[in-house]
């Protein structure tokens, strides 16, 4: 008997999700029945990829498939006998048979018959369902819940009954878990139950409204988006240094709580940096959530391109629901997406800096705004006090330029980081150092000179978009320290480098002479030697590596260019072909914590033959602005000129002093965010198709563009299209995919499985969903609602379909094991984060504080010790911080959190659109024994003793409710009380230590409430542990 049932079940499962559809309609549907066969078994050689194409035949294009080929037809519509396709799929002749044996693809008999019948019926083609925009197939739905209309109709057609409504307390918990990810308290359940007595429907929708207003709503729903957005708190790869990206995580929580329209949600995340809105800029951190390789000796460009691939993959899964990654290396084999089209989309994302900017709190932002407007007002006053100011600035510029040292920029033929840990790169006449953030090291450049006399060398530190806060340094502030600047020469007759004596170093700005700031100190500053010094330019040439030139102007105004000039002790006259080596030592870094290097990221080196060269007495930024013709100066140039000119005017001293005082009040930003930033014209990148996706094999130029199969991009402005246009295109209402993909993901979060099971792939290989019309209806309705995510969620929760009981009899289970037709409610083990949050909530330990830096959970020493990099920053959260929601647990990519991973939380190496749900013995050990769960069991015990009536009956009732939200049955009560009795006996007899069980320490007594005993605390700790491990506790029922 069971054997027979087995095979029946297998047939159902193997046939996949088409089984009901085929029963429902015997008519062959191209998209549902034929395209998956073609796409899986034929298109590899007869599809979009022209490099793989055989026999000049495309089966994905109707006209080509039906073309007359000298009287032969691959497909002769209505005539299977004359169709080569039919003949070949049924052939056993290895020379004729399709697919050919070497492809290792085999058609089943059913598939062969389907193909034949389809040809016989006229071989009608239609577009894959997901590439046509969704429409509402029914317009008659107004008052009833649309989900119920579709589901009940379908169940009626099948002759099935929908399940009974779920019990109210079960439903209450289900709604809490789905909307805020936390279980209700017994009081909240009682409130809800009371409200249902008056009006069940109103009580439910009232609860939904209430919970949607809860700030915890955003926390729960953010987690789903964080998965697909591959959010993590570390950079990945070998170094895997911690990163600060939590401002983006909090942005998501806020956006969801505010019900930001989903189209804006996408636009800001893909191009928020281009919208002139500091909040949207944080949103664009989405693109930067991927991994960053900081291993020694990497070629930066290789991993920058890898990162753009990752962004494409992420957008494909998150927004488009397409596996576009395939087209990275070649034209997609199944979906109509060419290799060129991939790079067309890639081009939109390719042209950015890997930027990092400060993030201010709203209060700080306001304060900053105020200070800036006060400064602007003071600058306006200059016009009153000094009416000729504009002309005087120009005069000043002319004078300074006339007096200026004439520099000639070196054109080095060799630029190296000694030891090769970094690979500096040329960008026009500047040099860019990215990659491994080593905390000490030496850079040098070697240039060939023509015959000349050299009197001095200038080092410029220049701003660059790839550096934190534009640089010019690579530390977390964007500043740098140069420990030593050395010059060597090699005359054509010399064999070896000869040092050149230096004198008189000056800089446009130097910090006051001081000890190295705390953040950059290393173990070398804590030993016998004195703390390293930083400050004046003279430290550049004092031949001491423990002193260095640091130009740090202070909060916010530090983000600017700097220059230092060193003179040659005696002018050096060199013949043609002399080589000049300039060596920079950058040894003022710390121990390798994030951003504690002191590298100069973007620099330029020049020489002069002028006498006694010195740095300008004003900001180098102004010198740079002076080199720009007056009519081409940017606002930034003008600001720099005004700022520096006014300081030369004695009469303006009071204003200058006031401005300086205001600048000192600039707030220190709360945190920073990694984000993309559009490149400046001089750094614009041309995108080329990469041969087989290989970073250093560029082929022809590809212009930004979108795939032809999807909706066209609407021109909204003149000039070339950019990433913002791409973002708007992604979120356009004409997109056949965007709304569907997101509605499906919401569905997946609530029902455990999407209406389209492969929520990351809506392409031709994805099965047509059972409830496509419903998905489409919801998608259109989602857009009509103004892309309100809360609207979609509310529609689902308010449906009877959602509110059904999840119980299943053997029969109802067997007829639809995966609940595809929705004749019962959702039931599944909750996500990793929710499991932990349930334990924290039930025990009363949960700390509801929102946002901020991620917290470090306790991780066993034998896990921590096997990290490649140092982990001393891992300061385990104690006290209330330890019990923050799981959303705030620090996610280190190379050391996935052992608790969350056991329950399938992804480690964010790449975008994850759906979690697999496993059920393993290793996972069982976690809520039994992991320290935070054990602490939760102890806390739950004390809570029960504190809050329930002082007898085991009442406590059992209360504890059970805290864990499961329902009352225990008599059998359950008996089971628990039997356990209690046995435990109490063993505790009383001394077999178990009361203190140790209740507190973890044989010497520490439990802090028991009134009317309870230490033995109660111990016995109830063990019972609480059982309750927190119950299937029902771990599940959404």
């Amino acid at each position, binding site marked *: 008997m069971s054997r027979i049932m087995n095979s029946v079940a297998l047939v159902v499962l193997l046939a996949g999700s088409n089984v009901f559809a085929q029963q429902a309609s015997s008519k062959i549907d191209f998209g549902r029945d034929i395209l998956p066969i073609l796409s899986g078994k034929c298109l590899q050689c007869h599809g979009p990829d022209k490099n793989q194409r055989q026999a000049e035949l495309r089966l994905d294009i109707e006209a080509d498939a039906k073309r007359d080929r000298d009287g032969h037809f691959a497909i002769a519509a209505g005539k299977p006998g004359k169709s080569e396709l039919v003949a070949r799929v049924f052939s056993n002749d290895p020379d004729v048979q399709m697919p050919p044996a070497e492809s290792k693809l085999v058609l089943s008999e059913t598939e062969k018959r389907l193909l034949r019948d389809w040809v016989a019926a006229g071989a009608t083609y239609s577009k894959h369902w997901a590439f046509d925009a969704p429409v509402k197939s029914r317009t008659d739905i107004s008052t009833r819940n649309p989900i119920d209309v579709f589901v009940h109709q379908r169940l009626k057609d099948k002759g099935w009954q929908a399940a009974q409504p779920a019990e109210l307390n079960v439903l209450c918990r289900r709604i809490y878990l789905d909307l805020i990810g936390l279980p209700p308290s017994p009081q909240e359940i009682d409130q809800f139950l009371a409200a249902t007595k008056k009006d069940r429907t109103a009580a439910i929708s009232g609860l939904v409204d209430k919970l949607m207003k809860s700030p915890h709503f955003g926390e729960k729903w953010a987690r789903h988006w964080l998965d697909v957005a591959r959010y993590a708190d570390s950079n990945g790869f070998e170094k895997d240094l911690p990163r600060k990206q939590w401002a983006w995580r909090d942005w998501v929580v806020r956006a969801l709580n505010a019900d930001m329209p989903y189209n804006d949600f996408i636009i800001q995340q893909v191009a928020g940096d281009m919208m002139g809105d500091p909040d949207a800029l944080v949103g664009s951190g989405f693109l930067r959530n991927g991994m960053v390789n900081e291993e020694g000796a990497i070629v930066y460009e290789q991993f920058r391109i890898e990162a753009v691939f990752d962004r494409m993959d992420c957008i494909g899964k998150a927004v488009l629901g397409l596996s576009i990654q395939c087209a990275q290396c070649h034209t997609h084999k199944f979906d109509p997406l060419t290799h060129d089209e991939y790079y067309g989309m890639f081009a939109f994302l390719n042209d950015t800096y890997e930027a990092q900017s400060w993030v201010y709190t709203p209060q700080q932002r306001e304060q900053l705004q105020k200070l800036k407007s006060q400064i602007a007002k003071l600058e306006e006053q200059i016009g009153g006090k000094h009416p000729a100011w504009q002309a005087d600035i120009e005069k000043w510029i002319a004078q300074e330029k006339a007096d200026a040292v004439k520099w000639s920029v070196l054109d080095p033929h060799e630029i190296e980081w000694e030891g090769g840990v970094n690979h500096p790169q040329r960008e026009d006449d500047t040099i860019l150092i990215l990659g491994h953030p080593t905390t000490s090291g030496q850079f040098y450049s070697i240039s060939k000179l023509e015959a000349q006399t050299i009197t001095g060398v200038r080092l410029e530190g220049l701003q660059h978009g790839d550096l934190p806060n534009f640089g010019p340094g690579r530390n977390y502030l964007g500043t740098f320290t140069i420990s030593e600047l050395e010059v060597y020469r090699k005359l054509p007759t010399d064999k070896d480098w000869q040092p050149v004596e230096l004198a008189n170093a000056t800089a446009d700005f130097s910090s006051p002479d001081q000890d190295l700031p705390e953040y950059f100190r290393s173990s070398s500053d804590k030993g016998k030697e004195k703390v390293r010094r930083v400050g004046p330019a003279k430290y550049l040439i004092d031949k001491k590596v423990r002193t260095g030139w640091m130009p740090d102007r202070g909060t916010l105004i530090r983000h600017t260019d700097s220059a230092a000039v060193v003179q040659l002790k005696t002018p050096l006259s060199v013949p043609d072909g002399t080589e000049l080596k300039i060596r920079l030592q950058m040894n003022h870094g710390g121990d390798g914590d994030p951003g504690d290097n002191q590298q100069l990221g973007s620099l330029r080196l020049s020489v002069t033959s002028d006498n006694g060269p010195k740095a300008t007495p004003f900001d180098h930024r102004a010198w740079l602005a002076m080199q720009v013709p007056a009519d081409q100066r940017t606002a930034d140039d003008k600001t720099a000129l005004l700022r520096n000119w006014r300081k030369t005017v004695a009469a303006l001293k009071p204003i200058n002093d006031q401005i300086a005082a205001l600048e000192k009040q600039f707030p220190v930003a709360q945190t920073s965010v990694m984000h993309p930033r559009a490149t400046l014209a001089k750094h614009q990148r041309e995108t080329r198709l990469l041969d087989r996706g290989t970073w250093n094999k560029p082929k022809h130029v590809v212009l930004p563009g979108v795939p032809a199969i999807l909706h066209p991009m609407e021109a909204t402005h003149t000039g070339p299209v950019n990433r913002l246009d791409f973002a708007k295109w992604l979120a356009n209402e004409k997109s056949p995919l965007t709304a569907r993909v997101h509605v499906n993901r919401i569905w997946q979060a609530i029902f455990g499985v999407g209406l389209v099971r492969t929520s990351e792939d809506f392409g031709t290989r994805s099965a047509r969903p059972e409830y496509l019309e419903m998905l489409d209806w919801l998608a259109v309705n989602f857009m009509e609602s103004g892309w309100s995510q809360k609207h979609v969620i509310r529609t689902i929760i308010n449906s009877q379909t959602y509110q059904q009981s999840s119980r299943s009899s053997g029969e109802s289970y067997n007829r639809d094991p995966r609940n595809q037709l929705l004749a019962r409610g959702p039931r599944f083990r909750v996500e990793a984060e929710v499991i932990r949050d349930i334990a924290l909530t039930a025990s009363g330990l949960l700390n509801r504080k929102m946002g901020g830096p991620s917290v470090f959970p306790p991780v066993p020493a034998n896990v921590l010790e096997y990290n490649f990099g140092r982990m001393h920053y891992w300061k385990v959260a104690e006290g209330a911080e330890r019990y923050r929601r799981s959303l705030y647990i620090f996610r280190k990519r190379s050391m996935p959190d052992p608790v969350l991973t056991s329950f399938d939380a992804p480690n964010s190496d790449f975008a994850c659109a759906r979690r697999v749900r496993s*059920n393993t013995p290793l996972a069982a050990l976690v809520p039994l024994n992991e320290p935070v769960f054990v602490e939760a069991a102890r806390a739950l015990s004390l809570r029960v003793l504190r809050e329930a009536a002082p007898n085991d009956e009442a406590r059992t009732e209360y504890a059970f409710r805290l864990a499961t939200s329902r009352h225990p049955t008599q059998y359950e009560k008996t089971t628990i009380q039997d356990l209690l009795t046995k435990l109490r006996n063993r505790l009383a007899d001394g077999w178990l230590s009361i203190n140790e069980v209740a507190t973890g320490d044989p010497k520490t007594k439990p802090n028991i409430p009134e009317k309870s005993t230490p033995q109660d605390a111990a016995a109830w700790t063990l019972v609480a542990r059982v309750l927190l491990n119950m299937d029902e506790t771990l599940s959404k029922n």
Partner: protein
Amino acid sequence: MGTRNQMSNQQQIQSEQARYLTRRWFLGECGVGLAVMALHTLQQQEASAAPSPLSPRAPHHRPKAKRVIYIFQAGAPSQLELFDPKPELAKRSGQLPPAELLKGYRSAFINPNSNLLGPKYRFIPSGQSGVEYSEVLPQTSSMADDICLIRTINTPAVNHAPAQIMMNSGSQQFGRPSFGSWMTYGLGSEGDDLPGYVVLTSARGTSGGASNYGCGFLPTIYTGVPFRGKGDPVLYLSNPAGIDSEAQRDSLNALRKLNQATLDQIGDPETAARIQNYESAYRLQTSAPELMDLSQESKQTLDSYGIKSPTESTFARNCLLARRLLERGVRFVQLFHEAWDQHSNLKARVKSNAVNTDQGSAALLKDLKQRGMLEDTIVIWGGEFGRTPMVQGGDDGRDHHNRCFSMWLAGGGIRGGMAYGSSDDFGFNVAENPVHVHDLHATLLHLLGFDHERLIYRFQGRDFRLTDVHGHVVKGILA
């Protein structure tokens, strides 16, 4: 299953039902079913043999090996000091390499046009086969007749993390399943209580981190499970303080009753699976410590591995644990030993690393052989890439080198006593018989009974393989 004896008939029937439902759940919901079943349909096997995603399964063809121990020597051991004798390199030590050699070559740290550096150690013909091994590997070379030394491995990656990921998953991009995951997915496990794929680490953490043994897009159950040399061998294995085994058993009995009531009420097969898993976890609480406890091993065995203290976590101890894991049905054991990145201090560190690993590796081979396990176990020894024949720094370091390096294999289906492939005079390029990482993977899968082109998993609409779209079985190393 230890508790079965205590069960009544009724309970047994319920338990059988639970198992049936569990299996259905695995097939239906956890995403394992269809792919694995597809594998079976190809084989036209009796499909009902699969009670869980880890139950043993037959591969595509009759396998030569059923188990793997992969000794991953992370950091990139120098083939020029260990495996690949280069007299010409010794002769030309201190000279610049020929210019044509460096065309299009990219090294990691050094300027490729750096002086050649002769091998630091002598090579000795070993065994009857006479394959040459370095003098620093006296124990390994004593097993030369069982080993197939491949001297022409090559990989596209030249930085540690991407290269480790490449060697372990066939891709430089993170997120693909590791070899061990693929194998466990394909074959299941023969152990009742232990995971199918176990990881042991010595020295320090690896560059690739947990992704080195990650399951990528395969179900989580195929992830490598680290067993720890210190503390709990399996995370969270020990009961909380104060809970003895009786209290634990009583608690789990109550839990089982409560969960059984839920199963009866709601009928969700996931509950049945959970009931089973709490019982398995309970058994693991006994079996894992028993596994890690070397007190039953003879002094002779401990000595042969070079284990000085049976409780100290060392490479040698991990070698012995690997054998013990295989004995208990684990399919794939991977040892990570991150120690070989000799940019400097080459001579001394290669020696000390050899001292730390040579004996354990060789003893493992001998032990397996003696127990008749080597004939159906593959042992793999190697790192993520090799090292340059050019010097780094003064005269005692080598940079990363991806074009040609060495690994060895031994055991089931492998032809012992041979060196496969040869490098050029400098050990720089492959001269004959290159073996790409994909070829290595294809060959290993072949030995395990798989056609590497058919061991697939559909994700994102694409059928993924360990070998991507590449890989050829290296026939020359098959027994």
